[in-house]
C-alpha cells in the first residue's frame, strides 16, 4: 500500500470514526443566523457534544452550560458566578457571559464526579441540591422545556423578578 493511500484511509477512519458522535453533532443543527462560533454561540445546547474532546469544537471543556434569569423565558443571566465543587475537594468558579454561557476548559479543571454546583449574583445564591454524576453539559438535564427527562432551564428567579447586574448593557 502506498504511503499516500495509507494516510488517506487513516483520515477517512478518523472522519467516520464515530457515527453516533457525528449524529449527535448534526442533531444540534447549524449555527444561529449571524452568530459566529465562539463564546456566545449555541446558548442552551449541550456544549460538550462538540467540545468534549471529539470535536468539531477545538476547545475541550469539562463543564459548560447556560444560565437564564427565569424558568419560562430565554432571557440570559449575565455576570453570574457559577461555582463548581468536585466531591473530593477541588473547585473552580467561572462567570456567565452576555448570553448566559459559561465554560471551563478541561486543562483548567478536570473534576472527578460527583460535582456540586451553585450560582451566585449579588446576594442571590441558588444551589443545585443534588450533584451532577457524569455529564459536563448542564443542558444534558436542563433542556429548555421541563419534561420526564429534563428539569427545564437553569434559572435563578421567579418570573419578572428584578435582577440588578444580570444583564449586558
Amino acid at each position, binding site marked *: 500500500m502506498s504511503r499516500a493511500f495509507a494516510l488517506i484511509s487513516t483520515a477517512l477512519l478518523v472522519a467516520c470514526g464515530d457515527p453516533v458522535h457525528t449524529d449527535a453533532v448534526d442533531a444540534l443543527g447549524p449555527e444561529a443566523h449571524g452568530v459566529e462560533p465562539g463564546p456566545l454561540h449555541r446558548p442552551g445546547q449541550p456544549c460538550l457534544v462538540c467540545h468534549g474532546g471529539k470535536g468539531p469544537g477545538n476547545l475541550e471543556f469539562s463543564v459548560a452550560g447556560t444560565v437564564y434569569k427565569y424558568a419560562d423565558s430565554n432571557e440570559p443571566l449575565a455576570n453570574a458566578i457559577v461555582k463548581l465543587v468536585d466531591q473530593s*475537594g477541588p473547585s473552580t468558579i467561572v462567570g456567565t457571559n452576555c448570553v448566559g454561557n459559561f465554560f471551563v476548559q478541561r486543562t483548567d479543571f478536570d473534576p472527578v464526579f460527583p460535582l456540586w454546583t451553585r450560582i451566585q449574583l449579588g446576594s442571590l445564591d441558588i*444551589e443545585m441540591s443534588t*450533584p451532577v454524576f457524569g455529564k459536563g453539559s448542564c443542558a444534558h438535564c436542563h433542556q429548555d422545556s421541563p419534561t420526564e427527562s429534563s428539569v427545564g432551564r437553569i434559572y435563578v428567579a421567579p418570573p419578572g423578578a428584578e435582577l440588578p447586574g444580570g444583564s449586558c448593557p
Partner: protein
Amino acid sequence: MLHSHCGSLDCHGQRGRNLRVYGINGLRIGGVSGTGPTTPDEYEATYRSVVVLEPEKLSRVVAEGGRGPERLTLVRKARGAEEHKGGTMAPLGSEADRCLTSWIAGALDGPACAAAAEMWPPEGF
C-alpha cells in the same frame, strides 16, 4: 438510595439503560424531572428493572438469605469491584452498600438506607 446514588438523568435515569431508576430528580413516568415526589408507579418500575437484571442469580442469593451478594453484577458495580462508568458509588461496607445488600437479604437496614437516601456536598460548598 438508588435515586440519590444511581438515578440521575446522566446515569441510570435514562431509558436506554438496563438498570433504570425512576424518580424525583431523574427520569419520571408522566411527571417532570426535579419536581414532585417519587410515585408508587416509579418505585414499581425501578423495582422491576432491578429484579430482571439477573433474575436467576438474584433468586439464588435471596434464597440463601443474601449470602454472597457479590455474585450480583449490581452489587459489584456499585462497589466498584467491576468496571463501572459511574465509579464506586457504594463502597463495600458503606451505608449505601449495607442498604442494598440488606434489602437483598430480606432484612432491610433502615438506618443505613435513611443515611444513604441523600448525598451531601463536601464541607464548605
